């Protein structure tokens, strides 16, 4: 899932303070799970904004709230088209994908972000997420025991650890595991150490030229027409 973190109220307020009709648009998928931009967080942000405006200048603002099931898909945002257009500005608490998608969709209404999008990760226990994938476009997990050296190793090293391994932890952050210690131990257990004895060539960064675009094979011909 995509993991995000709420922006501070001051930053959000600053982006919308010239408006008086403000809509907060939440997203009910990833950012709801990581407690950054779902229905509950939309409601909290709305209350905080109303209060902040009132305390600050006494300015009366209308703050509306909606939450779509997903903000990265047209079919889920279309039903809110009319409602959204009643406002002067939209704060999207979706990830950066949702913010951009909504901004494109609305066109002439400004859309600003209510969260900072952090990474693609997994839930590691209550309220904790860990980055698991950098979307590099050429997955090597088959060789590395299902542990990603591009993501888990701070230096994205493909051919083994640096000299900074410290009792199996990373020199960059002693709370984090050294990816290559994890990889080595897992492959040792699986009897697959041969997978990492080979020399990995330099990573092909062309596989992730930005912005990436993907058309499913089944749809490629249709698009060419």
């Amino acid at each position, binding site marked *: 899932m995509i993991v995000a973190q709420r922006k501070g109220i001051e930053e959000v307020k600053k982006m919308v303070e010239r408006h008086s009709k403000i809509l907060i648009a939440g997203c009910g998928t990833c950012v709801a799970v990581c407690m950054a931009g779902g229905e509950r967080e939309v409601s909290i942000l709305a209350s905080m904004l109303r209060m902040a405006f009132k305390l600050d200048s006494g300015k009366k603002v209308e703050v509306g709230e909606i939450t779509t099931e997903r903000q990265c898909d047209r079919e889920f945002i279309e039903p809110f088209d009319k409602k959204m257009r009643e406002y002067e500005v939209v704060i999207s608490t979706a990830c950066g994908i949702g913010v951009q998608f909504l901004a494109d969709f609305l066109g002439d209404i400004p859309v600003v972000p209510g969260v900072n999008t952090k990474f693609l990760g997994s839930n590691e226990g209550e309220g904790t997420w860990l980055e698991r994938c950098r979307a590099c476009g050429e997955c090597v997990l088959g060789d590395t025991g299902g542990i990603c050296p591009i993501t888990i190793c*701070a*230096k*994205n*090293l*493909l*051919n*083994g*650890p*640096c*000299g*900074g*391994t*410290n*009792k*199996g932890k990373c*020199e*960059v952050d002693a709370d984090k595991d*050294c990816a*290559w*210690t994890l*990889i*080595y131990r897992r492959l*040792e257990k699986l009897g697959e*150490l041969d997978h*990492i*004895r080979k*020399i*990995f*060539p*330099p*990573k092909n*960064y062309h596989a992730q030229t930005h912005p990436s675009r993907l058309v499913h094979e089944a749809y490629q011909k249709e698009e060419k027409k």
Partner: protein
Amino acid sequence: MTQKTKLQQAFESGKFVVSAEIGPPKGTQIDEMLHHIDALKNRVDALNVTDNQSSVMRLSSLAVCKLIREQGGEPILQMTCRDRNRLALQSDLLSASVLGINNVLCLTGDYITIGDHKEAKPVFDIDSVQLIRAVRDLEKGRDIAGNELQGSPKFFVGAVVTPEADPIEPQLLKFEKKVKVGTDFFQTQAIYEIDNFKKFMQYARQFKTRIMAGIVLLVSAGMARYMNQNVPGIFVPQGLIDEMASAPKGKALEKGIEIAGRMIRQLKEEKICDGVHIMAIGKEGVIPDIIRAAGLNGSR
């Protein structure tokens, strides 16, 4: 160039090779560094110049290597993968070659956040193994992408290894890859426990390469304790910490010089490894004293 570098010749002559580390300044004041270079150039086989050491932005290794060359010294260009992508690294290798700098030490590099530009973008486009292979490919007239060069460089290539890494197995796996892609010599992370190092050397001797033990000058007992706690892959035994602590006030540096000299002497006399690389971080002025304490007097 087709002739061997002085460093390579030193190794091939069978002598115990000594290199010293030069840390470029943060700024353009080079007088003190030039003084150190001048004092060391005839006392060691090569001067090894760090590349934005500890991720702190400084004068470049390439420029300082050129200054060493101009002063008649033998430079080793350090190259880390932290700040440059494959284009920049290869371009700098070609540049080094035309400037007459033909020893290169390839390493990953410390991470950005330990240095003084914490918000910078870490590069790590290629890793140290891939960099060493790239050097070897450039020598064959091809770049990483397989394109042909008009004129190819020739290098004597070094890499690093951490004999006290914990765990050691992944470190050795990488060491073997570095050997495989064509590393001429290794310089180790600082070692203090010679018996542990002997065990590493027993293992390393099965490969056709050369090992220079890393000698970091201790300047206080506190420094030794700090390194034990904070620097991965460095282990200072309690005996040495006690010895440093026993030095009278104001004499700790002298004690550190004595210890470094003693270690070097043992490494050489017992033929444990092929040479030493002396790092006297910030105290380059005392390297001649260490060399004297090691009994390596005389010009080289």
